[in-house]
């Protein structure tokens, strides 16, 4: 089995608090891997460590077997690991078209072109249009991102990450806060992600997790608790106790 993403004893401390405790995560190539856990388990911290938004206190991160532990965030993105954020991180004043165009141009390493007018590369615009169509954003592509409905912004959040043509895509609660009637668009977009992209999903919504994932890791208090197939995790009494149980009572 080949691993797309692997961490070895990954650790993050904030002062005396251990947010990530010796996490050794193994995500196979092409996997649909979910990372679940109760609130405050440290899921987003793991994503931040993986993408270089936070520096780990100890441990190693391997992307396709290559050690990226000390690489800066933008280098990791260029190496093919992109992410979405739990709270939208978009460019309020740019349009979806400009946002996606920018993401494509940066991925191609053309971001420092300072004497070519935007749109001077037709194939770049074509690629951006393709992505916008794929995420059903063409009708709003010229609007300011700030005025888009929340569901559209959520789609754009995923589209931007896809525009980076990732090998590994990290989705941080992609459906969080989306109203019920816009939800199916997000779920469809996630289901339609290219098969060759390895996906690591953080999600609270158990329906989404169990319909999507072929592998589930459970994080509790910053440490990996169980890693198994969805069926096994669903049956595991310990998981029920710490996680599903909590939710049932909550």
């Amino acid at each position, binding site marked *: 089995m080949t691993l797309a993403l692997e961490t070895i004893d990954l650790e993050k401390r904030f002062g005396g608090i251990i947010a990530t405790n010796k996490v050794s995560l193994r995500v196979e190539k092409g996997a649909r891997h979910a990372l679940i856990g109760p609130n405050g388990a440290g899921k987003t911290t793991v994503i931040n460590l993986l*993408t270089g*938004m936070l520096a780990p206190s100890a441990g190693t991160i391997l992307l396709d077997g290559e050690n990226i532990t000390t690489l*800066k*965030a*933008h*280098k990791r*993105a*260029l190496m093919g690991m*992109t*992410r979405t*954020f739990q709270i939208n*991180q*978009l*460019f*309020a*004043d*740019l*349009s979806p*078209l*400009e*946002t996606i*165009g*920018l*993401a494509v*141009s*940066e*991925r191609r390493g*053309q*971001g*420092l*072109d*300072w*004497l*070519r*007018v*935007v*749109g001077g590369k*037709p194939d770049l*615009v*074509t690629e*951006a*249009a*393709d992505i*916008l*169509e*794929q995420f059903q954003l*063409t009708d709003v*592509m*010229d609007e300011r991102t700030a005025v888009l409905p929340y569901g559209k912004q959520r789609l754009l959040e995923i589209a*931007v*990450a896809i525009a*980076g043509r990732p090998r590994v895509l990290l989705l941080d609660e992609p459906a969080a806060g989306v109203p019920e009637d816009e939800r199916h668009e997000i779920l469809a977009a996630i289901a339609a992600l290219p098969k060759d992209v390895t996906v690591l999903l953080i999600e609270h919504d158990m329906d989404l997790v169990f319909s999507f994932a072929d592998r589930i890791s459970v994080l509790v208090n910053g440490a990996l608790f169980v890693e198994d197939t969805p069926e096994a995790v669903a049956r595991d009494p310990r998981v029920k106790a710490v996680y599903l149980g909590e939710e049932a009572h909550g």
Partner: protein
Amino acid sequence: MTASRSLIARAQDSVAARARWHPLEFVFWLVAFGAIWFAPGYHLILTEVAWLGLFALSLDLILGYAGIISLGHAAFFGFGAYVAGLLAKHELVTEPALALIVSGFAAMLLGFATSFLVLRGSDLTRLMVTLGVALVLREMANRFDWLTGGADGLQGVTMQPVLGHFRFDLYAHTAYTYCLVVLFVLFLLARRVVNSPFGLSLLAVKGNPLRASALGISVSTRLVAIYTFAAFYAGVAGALLTQTTAFASLDVLSFDRSADLLLVLIIGGAGYLYGGLIGAVVFKLMQNYLALLTPQYWPFWIGLVLVVLVLVGRDRMTSWTLPIRRLAAKLDWRTTAKAADAAEGH
């Protein structure tokens, strides 16, 4: 899945719209160049407007496009001013246009060296750091009076004719034409740069550095690049002042100059390149005419205008001109025609 041809054409057109020339822009430059022939009596003040406009354009590049606020932009202006003065005084580079470029590059080096100080921290940190750099430079110019003339200013600067042909005259006819041409050329360059993928990435960095880095953008590299680039503009503006007045004094580096500059840009509005130019026109005219009316108290009126502007501009200081610009966009027959086309298409 592939996008249809019409969609791609629409996207292509929409992307290109950012860089398209607006009719009002032609009007602006026609008036500016027309003033060479039609307003010879105003060339002295228009010369000041031109270099101040270029200086404000420089601040707009970092503030309006990259979100770097500065209270010490005079550091680069002053540096360019002194370099131009010294080049002329010691006859190192006597041809003004060439000396101008050398002065700009000198300021650019200073900009590059100090750019690393503005990479981190909040707006407040940046205000203090830029302010500090300008203060340090001013006191160095004061201290090294054997080189700069200290508080007496740099004396004995004589200017050679521009390109060996055009002699500077008392009425600033040459000076205005010279400054305007420089301003126009550098404006065209700036316009190109802000409408490039690099320019778009600056807006991204300004809007959301976290997302920008997640896209693969090295935020610090982009900030260093634009800060260095803008320092060139400020240095050239300073050099223009020295060359057109054949004099440089400590106030080219003063805090007032940096603060006034921020005022100029806010009057005109940041983030669309013309703000600094319009602000420079308004500021210089106000300074001139209010000073005639109330020689001592004219800053009162400038202060009042500033307060009103910032209060009116709800979305902070950069976009109070937005409604006017939207109106201008509506007046643009090309945009209107396209909207009509789109309406028919549906």
